[in-house]
């Protein structure tokens, strides 16, 4: 009996030692940079916005550049399902990720993965992770929403020959923190300049993916009820701006102008037609990816973290003056 117990205890102890040896210690490289025990630098990237053109192209570019650096990059995606993202990232952290890259995250919805990363001392680098500094990220590179709003409101001002007394519809999407911020900033700027917000409040698109049709209906129906009550449409992203421009074209109007943000290829084609789509703003996400990749590489090399944890970069206005020379990335 005693011999059996000794053998069993011995086997258990051996098994535990073997399991310990096989397991990935998430703290192995925590906070010090460098690769894990197996020499591989593991990056767990995620985005809940992979279904959007910007989200997909940016994260694909990140994966491509990360792999070119020799990193082991795994991309986790969802269709705005943060429950799935939090679960996936907690698993990735347990499996020994060295760095997390948050692509277009909603900082309000990632607390579980942030807590898990803090517990394992894994830094989170972010692309477009909000509109203000956030201690959850060692670095967040994003576009200056104030500048995006200024550029587009300025373009509308130019197109309409001033803002004072003009009726402008504002189309936003509050669940997206970036669009929400720039839409509210634009609305404030319009009101401060003496413009009237058509309909009295911002129009909210329910789904960015189907927003072209939503905006088409918003503007068509508004013009039906107020044929002389619209001079411009400010839209927080190009997809919906395309619908607004289409509604104006279908109404046979050439005195109402639209601006968007993103500089999608299809939007730039519309701008070139000198129709209602007057301007958009190009956000060069690829240059943002380049910067974040370099900063992650610096961390991998010797554990150096970026000096600033919130970096705002500026967009470029694309209008009739430069649309022909612009090559869209989306």
């Amino acid at each position: 009996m005693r011999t059996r117990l000794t053998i069993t205890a011995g086997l258990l102890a051996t098994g535990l030692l073997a399991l310990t040896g096989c397991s990935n210690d998430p703290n192995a490289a925590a906070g010090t940079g460098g690769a894990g025990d197996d020499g591989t630098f593991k990056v767990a990237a995620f985005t809940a916005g992979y279904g959007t053109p910007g989200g997909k192209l940016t994260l694909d570019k990140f994966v491509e550049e990360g792999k070119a650096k020799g990193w082991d990059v795994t991309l986790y995606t969802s269709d705005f399902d943060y429950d799935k993202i939090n679960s996936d990232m907690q698993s990735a952290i347990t499996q020994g990720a060295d760095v997390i890259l948050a692509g277009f995250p909603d900082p309000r919805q990632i607390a579980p993965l942030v807590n898990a990363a803090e517990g394992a001392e894994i830094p989170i680098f972010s692309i477009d992770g909000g509109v203000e500094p956030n201690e959850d990220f060692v670095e967040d590179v994003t576009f200056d929403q104030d500048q995006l709003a200024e550029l587009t409101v300025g373009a509308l001002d130019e197109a309409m020959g001033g803002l004072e007394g003009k009726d402008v519809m504002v189309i936003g999407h509050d669940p997206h923190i970036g669009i929400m911020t720039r839409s509210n900033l634009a609305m404030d700027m319009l009101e401060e300049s003496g413009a009237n917000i058509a309909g009295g409040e911002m129009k909210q698109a329910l789904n960015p993916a189907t927003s072209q049709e939503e905006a088409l209906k918003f503007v068509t129906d508004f013009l039906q009820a107020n044929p002389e009550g619209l001079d411009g449409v400010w839209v927080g992203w190009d997809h919906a701006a395309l619908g607004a421009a289409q509604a104006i074209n279908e109404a046979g109007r050439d005195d109402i102008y639209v601006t968007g943000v993103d500089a999608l290829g299809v939007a730039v084609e519309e701008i070139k037609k000198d129709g209602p789509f007057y301007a958009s703003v190009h956000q060069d996400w690829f240059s943002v990816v380049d910067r974040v990749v370099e900063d992650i590489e610096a961390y991998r090399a010797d554990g150096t973290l970026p000096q600033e944890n919130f970096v705002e970069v500026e967009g470029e206005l694309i209008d009739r003056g430069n649309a022909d020379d612009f090559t869209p990335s989306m």
Partner: protein
Amino acid sequence: MAQTTDIVPAVEVPQDKTQMSQLLWQGGTIIALVALIVVFGVLSPAAFLSFGNMTNILAQVAILTIIAAAQTVVMVTGHFDLSVGTTATLAGATASALMINGMPVSMAIVVGVLVGTLVGIVNGILVAYLGISAIVATLATMTTVGGLAFIVTDGTTLYGMPESFNWIGQTRLAGIPMPVFFALIVAAVIWVILRYTTVGRRWYAVGGNSEVARLSGVNVRLNVLLAFTLAGLASALGGIILVSRLSSASSTSANDYMMLAVAAAFLGMTLLKSGQANIGGTLVGVGIIGVLQNGLNIVGVNTYIQQVLTGIIIIAAVLMSSLKSKNA
């Protein structure tokens, strides 16, 4: 005998009441549509009741009409198709991608329609021959087909289709947008199939009681397969017309139509005494949704409230339909 004499009048009175309530019950959906038109007509008479706005409403519900007609076909057989929206998206995206890559417009449209038809066939096989619940089967295909749409579009927005393709979705005939005519054609064809063809009658028989239909010599499985196939084909047409209307194809452009199509078909089911799905009723349901959305936009109601109201209508439709089934 005396007992019988006593019973007859006692039964007849409730029958009159039942017939009256039945008429109100059946006419309730049409009354709701008329009431909405009256309310918005009073609130904004110049804008809402104009010819231009009636044309707008028709244009805005054209795609929904086609996809709801597809859903109706499946619901006639007693099933659901949750994949009609993603099927429409995939078909539109496929046709667009092929056109952008140089395929002639007509050929690309045919391929897009075939893709939708294929999805319908897969749904039919899963439900009719493999015995999977329609909700589970089409939920699975909805997910898969949605993923395929992302692959076809590469997650981005496709544009740059030939100008000739825009004829389908953007031209007008006698001031009426072309999608309206396509919607009418699809609805009429499906109405004729359901009303005047053997296969249509068999679908109603299967939907009424599949076991009785089987014992009567109807090939239930084949008929369910055919219904799903037609739904896939019609959904594909809706998706292609939508892409032409917008001049662009995204990875989720028609997905939201599924829920509205179900709501329209449920609303329409209250029109028949039997409580079965039918094209006429579905068109009334589509009308209610279209008038509601357009009217609320015109009077300036917030889109969040619009969504709440649409949800309430879906609940009311399902409730009325289930009560109707119990009474039938």
